[in-house]
């Protein structure tokens, strides 16, 4: 018998899993080798204790404010709205955060946990290099030794971020196995943790991986929606009646962070729209497991919709945006999809590039290729909507890192 999946109200989504770590009885879990059972259990206990510890929360808030630069601003994109006609378009400019993207929240919290657990080494994975750069920053800030696992192919195409990591004193470990990109970097990082879990803490760069890593990351990025809620009340005196929160989805950490405070609202009032990477228009490859009907599978310790072949081999993905180029997706987004609370769609490489061009033309905003996917959807739907609809896009990354790709594709910048 199939049980109907249901969201609960009043409980953070990250806590709505069963005892075995599954959301909706089906997504998530902890498919890990025996060796990692103990370190994962230890981390689970530690996190449970820390998130209820007033001292720890004070510390977190202190660093969010004074180190990350919270709150990031919430602005109306007046020119873009006028140009498109229809709905008002706003942006939550999360790229203002220290380091230039939302990844700093997760990295900071993991560094604090690592310290609290008395471990001196921290390791993490990275694709575009943001998660790695932020972890190297946080490691430096908190005096931890840091190793970043990165696909050899990504190292070549994301040089600016690699330079930043090295400058922060982190060691970059090139991964030559498989497709030499993010998916292999995560595998290699987990393998490293299997061998060194006695003295090393692992940070997973998004709301993916074994259950506990989904929770820690979601708990960290949730800061974005706490800020937004306050900013909405301040701007509009109350939460407006027609809101659409649009966010790009790779692993799904920024989208969860952007939405978490608003999941309990009726979807008629606040619609949640996730935009995945559709890849090049003419290519069959993509990184959009939710919107292009991938099957449920197990990747990196969790069950989720995964781009894979019939046999269960993980597929190659393709996207102009390295940050969205991941074959799996967070189990909490799978849960939001199946409960129909959020709607998922995709934008192609070309859509994202066009959106980037349009936004930078009309606004003093320089969204990276990841949020440009979200802007593409906003630009598409805004003209069909009324002025009373508030579209808010999470501009979660800055395009400085995309300089080379933009120059190549657009011939300017």
């Amino acid at each position, binding site marked *: 018998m199939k049980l109907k999946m249901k969201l609960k109200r009043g409980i953070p989504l990250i806590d709505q899993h069963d005892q075995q770590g599954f959301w909706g009885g089906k997504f998530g879990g902890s498919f*890990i080798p025996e060796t990692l059972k103990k370190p994962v259990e230890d981390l689970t206990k530690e996190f449970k204790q820390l998130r209820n510890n007033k001292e720890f929360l004070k510390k977190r808030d202190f660093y969010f404010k004074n180190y990350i630069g919270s709150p990031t601003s919430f602005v109306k994109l007046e020119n873009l709205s006028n140009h498109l006609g229809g709905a008002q378009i706003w942006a939550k400019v999360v790229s203002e955060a220290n380091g230039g993207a939302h990844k700093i929240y997760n990295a900071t919290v993991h560094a604090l946990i690592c310290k609290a657990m008395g471990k001196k080494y921290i390791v993490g994975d990275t694709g575009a290099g943001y998660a790695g750069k932020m972890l190297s920053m946080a490691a430096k800030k908190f005096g931890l030794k840091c190793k970043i696992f990165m696909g050899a192919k990504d190292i070549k195409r994301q040089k600016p971020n690699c330079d930043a990591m090295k400058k922060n004193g982190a060691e970059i470990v090139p991964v030559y196995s498989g497709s030499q990109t993010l998916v292999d970097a995560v595998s290699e990082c*987990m393998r490293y943790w299997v061998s060194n879990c006695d003295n090393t803490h692992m940070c997973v760069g998004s709301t993916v991986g074994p259950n506990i890593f989904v929770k820690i990351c979601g708990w960290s990025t949730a800061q974005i929606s706490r800020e937004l809620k306050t900013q909405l009340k301040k701007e509009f005196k109350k939460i407006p009646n027609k809101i659409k929160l649009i966010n790009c989805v790779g692993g799904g950490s920024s989208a969860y962070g952007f939405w978490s405070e608003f999941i309990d609202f009726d979807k008629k009032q606040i619609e949640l729209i996730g935009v995945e990477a559709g890849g090049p228009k003419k290519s069959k490859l993509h990184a959009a497991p939710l919107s292009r009907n991938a099957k449920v599978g197990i990747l990196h*310790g969790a069950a989720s919709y995964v781009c894979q072949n019939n*046999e269960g081999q993980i597929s190659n993905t393709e996207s102009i945006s390295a940050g969205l180029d991941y074959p799996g997706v967070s189990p909490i987004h799978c849960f939001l999809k199946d409960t129909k609370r959020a709607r998922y769609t995709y934008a192609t490489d070309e859509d994202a590039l066009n959106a980037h061009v349009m936004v930078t033309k009309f606004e003093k905003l320089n969204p990276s290729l990841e949020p440009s996917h979200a802007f593409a959807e906003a630009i598409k739907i805004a003209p069909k909507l009324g002025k009373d609809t508030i579209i808010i896009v999470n501009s979660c990354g800055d395009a400085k890192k995309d300089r080379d790709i933009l120059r190549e594709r657009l011939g300017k910048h």
Partner: protein
Amino acid sequence: MSYLLNKAFLNAKKENRPALLTYTVAGDNTKKKSLEILKSISNYADICELGFPHNTPIADGGQIQTSAYRAIKNGIKIKDVFSIAKNFKKSKKNTPIILMGYYNMIFQFNENKFLDKCKKSYVDGLIVVDLPYPENKSFASKCKKNGINFIQLVSPTTSQIRLKKIIKDSHDMVYYISMLSTTGGKLKVSPKKILERYNKIKNQNKSKNVVIGFGITEKTIKSLKKADGLVVGSAICKEISKSIERRQNTVTNVTNIVKRLRNKIQ
């Protein structure tokens, strides 16, 4: 439950030595070659583990990854893995065969269908690297119903309470991971320490066959010969890679290494 595993351990015990278990990847480097290798090494190995390769392995070191990627690149499919097992059994019906891999492959195939195929291919046991206890409870009992040994893994990080529960739920064989490492790492713990821990596991229930794996090579195998069984995987996969590189006969070279391993524990 397939009795072949128990029998293999018993035979080795009669000869006053541990059982020798080998691990090779199905389809490495071709379907035909991997079957030939399997048939040939089973003259010296007591139990053969056959890996069904996955392209996102989270617990394998470089050597086994290389073997797995090579097999996938050469087009190995799950149905080929079963046919290799079945063909192997045609000539070696008394040598137990254990399939080993990652859960997604089983999940996509469907648990029940997978076990049915195992049965039809005379597979004696299964190791699923990323399906730990207690998550594996329901699958393990399905295995038992189908007469297939589900092999539980125990590691140096496994707590005493957990160990008790795992042993209680285990079938004929338990796999002890010698150290914190992926497969093929250098043995970084002293054999004495490994055997101490091994004894603790063994003392939980003497009737379980406990094997030690990870980091076992020609150099280290002798020091652990007190165990019920010893698994060698990466050293074999490495030999296959080397033989291919030097354009030598993989079957002969791999057989020789297994022969030498066997001589060391005789």
